[in-house]
């Protein structure tokens, strides 16, 4: 094979695909062929680079130039200038937020990446996920070989225990101990499961790992199976992740062809078969007992524990379930040793954690940081802070099961214990950033609507309790709340927590409890003053036109979707409050800022 002097990596993760990377890829392919460069420039499609905000992302090596928001029209310029003439296309390089003139020439110098430590995301955005050889070139399947050929299952387990790795799905249970339970459980037939039923709003950590580095999951599961003595495994992935499933199917096929999956793996007695089970997208199926019921073809509902899956799991056999990110760390731990992994992070939380940073933040995307990094560093240094000069208001950690933390908690180090102490949870890694324009009551309502919809209905406290709590929140947001409602909410929240069987119900009240704890004033403003300080709750706000400023241009009247604005040309207009639906479109189009909201 001839030497490729340059590599053009185009992200085909879900984020960049949504912003049009497939068209850029095709344009690049055509242009390279047209210029006769296709034999010396390698075109590679990769998984997520993490900086989804800047997509479609194109990285050109050996220079490591990081091109942002590339369109098909930019492609001939990149080929002509950079690949042919060696002149980096300055205008497409990443620039620091707010300082468009300061371009960052090298991938590694971008502050977003500088503070990160990539272990689970090591290959994401760097290799072609559909090519097993690229994975092998980056030490892929070396950990499996080391475990199978040089270590006993017990020694391998010892490394994982030593690493201090804890479950990345949210609960943080020590992975090594979980494996040990399944290993000790009596039985000839055992199962391994990868929980890829990621469903929190704003979370896409697992999807990105599956799309960007599927072999890391396959290898991690193989090692887990070797340790506990399982010969069969399932990846339970929601059908809404079609690209992840496609890449997994391909990865499994390639691993089977190479004898890394199937019977007598790498010439040993170890056999392991891996299947994919597509879930229908029910949030509750992320709960392990409901997940297993779903694989068995039953309705996805949780069952009481004990018995724990380690003893009586899938089809009544001992089963070990870990989340995608947990599996993604396993091969790295076996390859580099448990001690290496435990040297990263804090006393109780080892290694790194991936976060999906979304919402009102400059660098929306995927971040992997060492445990113990303060929230502030993740949001402001890596995330690049809040856009449009707005003020930070809150961050929701752990999705609908998590909590909403204010500015004063931003110095909390990110580790399982510190985050739990705030009332939020680490969760699987969703991090939704909110600015001053976000209404806290509205946020609580949003997350509770989600859990209400997703409750499987088995436990009355979860089924009915979340419904009643949601009704109270709706009442408050419509200005019909009473002060006693806050105590009632708190009381019900604790009862729903105590009276629910699974994690969904036990954590569903967390958004309410944390917002009540940190943003009680805002609830009181809704109830007592009948005001929504963030001007979001439509029942509590009014748009008015200042007659002194209005020039009568009729723009607002033409924009209004419900014809609530009237007035003669060149004379002040008025809004009919009964007809107005408070969409705010009039305010957005007014050329003289005559419309205000109170």
């Amino acid at each position, binding site marked *: *094979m*001839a*030497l*490729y*002097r*340059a*590599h053009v*990596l185009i992200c085909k993760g879900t984020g960049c695909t949504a912003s049009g990377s497939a068209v850029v890829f095709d344009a690049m392919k055509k242009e390279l062929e047209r210029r006769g460069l296709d034999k*010396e420039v*390698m075109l590679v499609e990769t998984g997520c680079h993490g900086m989804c905000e800047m997509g479609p992302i194109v990285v050109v*090596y*050996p*220079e*490591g130039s990081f091109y942002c928001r590339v369109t098909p029209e930019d492609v001939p310029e990149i080929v002509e200038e950079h*690949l*042919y*003439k*060696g*002149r980096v296309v300055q205008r497409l390089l990443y620039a620091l937020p707010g300082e468009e003139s300061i371009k960052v020439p090298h991938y590694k110098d971008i502050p977003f990446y500088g503070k990160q430590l990539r272990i689970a995301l090591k290959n994401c955005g*760097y*290799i072609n996920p559909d*090519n097993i*050889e*690229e994975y*092998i*070139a*980056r*030490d892929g*399947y*070396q950990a499996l*070989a080391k475990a199978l*050929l040089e270590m006993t299952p017990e020694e391998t387990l010892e490394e994982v225990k030593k690493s201090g790795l804890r479950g990345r799905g949210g609960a943080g249970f020590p992975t090594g101990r979980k494996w040990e339970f399944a290993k000790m459980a009596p039985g000839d037939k055992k199962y391994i499961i990868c929980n890829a039923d990621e469903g929190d709003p704003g979370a896409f950590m697992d999807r990105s790992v599956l799309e960007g580095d599927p072999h890391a999951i396959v290898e991690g599961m193989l090692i887990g199976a070797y340790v506990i003595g399982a010969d069969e495994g399932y990846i339970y992935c929601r059908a809404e992740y079609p690209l992840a499933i496609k890449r997994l199917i391909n990865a499994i096929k390639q691993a089977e*062809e*190479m*004898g*890394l999956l199937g019977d007598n793996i*790498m*010439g040993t007695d170890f056999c392991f078969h891996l299947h994919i089970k597509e879930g229908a997208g029910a949030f509750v199926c992320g709960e392990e007992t409901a997940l297993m019921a779903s694989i068995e073809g039953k309705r996805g509902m949780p069952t009481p524990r004990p018995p724990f899956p380690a003893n009586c799991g899938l089809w009544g056999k001992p089963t070990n379930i870990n989340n995608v990110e947990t599996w993604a760390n396993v091969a790295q731990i076996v390859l580099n040793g448990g001690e290496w992994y435990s040297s990263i992070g804090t006393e109780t939380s080892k290694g790194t954690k991936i976060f999906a940073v979304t919402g009102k933040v400059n660098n929306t995307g995927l971040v992997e940081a060492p445990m113990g990094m303060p929230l502030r560093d993740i949001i402001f240094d890596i995330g690049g802070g809040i856009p449009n000069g707005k003020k930070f208001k809150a961050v929701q950690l752990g999705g609908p099961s998590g909590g909403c933390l204010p500015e004063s908690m931003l110095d909390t180090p990110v580790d399982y214990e510190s985050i739990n102490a705030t009332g939020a949870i680490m969760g699987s890694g969703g991090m939704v950033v909110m600015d001053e324009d976000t209404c806290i009551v509205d946020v609580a309502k949003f997350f509770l609507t989600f859990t209400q919809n997703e409750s499987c209905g088995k436990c009355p406290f979860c089924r009915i309790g979340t419904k009643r709590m949601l009704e109270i929140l709706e009442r408050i947001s419509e200005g019909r709340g009473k002060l006693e409602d806050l105590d009632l909410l708190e009381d019900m929240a604790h009862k729903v927590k105590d009276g629910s069987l699974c994690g969904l119900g036990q954590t569903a009240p967390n958004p309410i409890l944390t917002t009540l704890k940190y943003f009680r004033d805002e609830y009181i403003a809704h109830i007592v003053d009948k005001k929504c300080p963030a001007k979001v709750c439509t029942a509590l706000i009014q748009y008015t036109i200042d007659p002194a400023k209005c020039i009568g241009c009729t723009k607002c009247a033409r924009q209004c979707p419900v014809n609530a604005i009237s007035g003669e040309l060149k004379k002040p207009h008025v809004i009919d409050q009964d007809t107005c639906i408070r969409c705010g479109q009039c305010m957005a189009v007014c050329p003289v800022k005559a419309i205000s909201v109170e």
Partner: protein
Amino acid sequence: MKKKITSLEDLRKIKSESKDLTSARSGGKSRIIIGMGTCGIAAGAREVMTAILEILDKKGIKDVAVETTGCIGMCQKEPLVDVIRLGESRITYGYVAPEDVERIIEDHLVNGKIVADKVIGRTD
């Protein structure tokens, strides 16, 4: 169908064969830089570059980054080719023709012996 991996040697073999798949994406290598400004192209830099890629392929040399760069101002001496061996100075060769390439790669890049008659400059 691909050959099955049945031993650690098999895996290592695939790894070393696949190394150059991703090697251009990592630093820490010797570099060859070709001047590909308009002046360079007009003087035949494209043919020199093709020769470089062919010779590297023929000799099986994978551990080198082949880069292009714009005009550095010495247009009269194009095509210009720079060779930077890992940890050594940047040596600039001028008036490089495709038939000089093999000598530059063999003597300088591989064996560390600068091809004196073609050198026009050195940067530390």
